């Protein structure tokens, strides 16, 4: 829950762009935010693979590592092709800060408590990132290829969210 709040706060910079014309994220910033969001979930998945013994949780974590790595590889190839340098920004920084805090708090948990906290956080995280993709990042992306990759990402992450929700429900 706290994580969800922290991420929601992290995205207010970008969301605020809807009001203040000048604050709309640029393509280099959007690329940075999307890439950062992927790196965070890969790190979370690797932590789960190191700590969880539950097969369903481990399968899910492997899927997160594999899929988000695939999207990010594609994103790197795209920015290289477009000659765009992803630009760090307050949204990326807030995301990283929230994610580092979450990794630290999850590192104190074991067994079922870890599994539950990881999966609950994956639900909240994907929900927040998907909201940001749909309402801020995709609408503001100027380059068609970047927009397309973000749209593919959104379809993937929605599936991840559904998968995480299914795992969370099975654990209640």
């Amino acid at each position, binding site marked *: 829950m706290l994580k969800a709040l922290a991420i929601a706060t992290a995205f207010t910079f970008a969301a605020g762009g809807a009001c203040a014309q000048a604050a709309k994220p640029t393509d280099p910033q959007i690329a940075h935010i999307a890439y950062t969001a992927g790196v965070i979930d890969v790190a979370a998945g690797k932590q789960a693979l190191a700590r969880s013994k539950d097969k369903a949780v481990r399968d899910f974590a492997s899927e997160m590592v*594999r*899929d988000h790595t695939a999207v990010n*590889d594609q994103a790197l190839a795209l920015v290289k092709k477009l000659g765009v340098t992803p630009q760090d920004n307050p949204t990326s920084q807030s995301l990283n800060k929230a994610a580092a805090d979450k990794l630290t708090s999850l590192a104190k948990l074991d067994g079922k408590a870890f599994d539950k906290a990881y999966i609950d956080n994956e639900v909240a995280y994907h929900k927040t990132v998907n909201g940001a993709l749909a309402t801020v990042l995709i609408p503001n992306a100027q380059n068609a290829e970047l927009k397309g990759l973000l749209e593919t990402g959104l*379809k993937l992450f929605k*599936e991840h969210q*559904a*998968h995480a929700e299914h795992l969370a429900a099975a654990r209640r």
Partner: protein
Amino acid sequence: MTVIPRWLGALAGAALLAVPAAPLAAPKTYQIAIQQMKFAPAPSGLKVGDTIEWVNDDIFLHSATARDKSFDVELRPKAHVRLVLARAGTVDFACRYHPGMTGRLVVGKQAR
């Protein structure tokens, strides 16, 4: 003199019986592509002996895995994998990695 075990004889007999009298219609090949985290709709009119060519157009690892375990096809990004339909019936399938990706094959008996 070679003695043919009884079970082998029975097997050979069964195999002979299984060969239909009329010539078979030529089997067909159909594609089912995965794009953007979705299986394309399965073609209608599938028959035993036909081939499904699974095509993964995504950049993600997928699978076409039958719920009844009758097939399990691993589909690496950009892979094309062929599967011969071995038996008639309705088979629901899903991606092992992305359970929300689902589809259904309806396979009729072999065409004559």
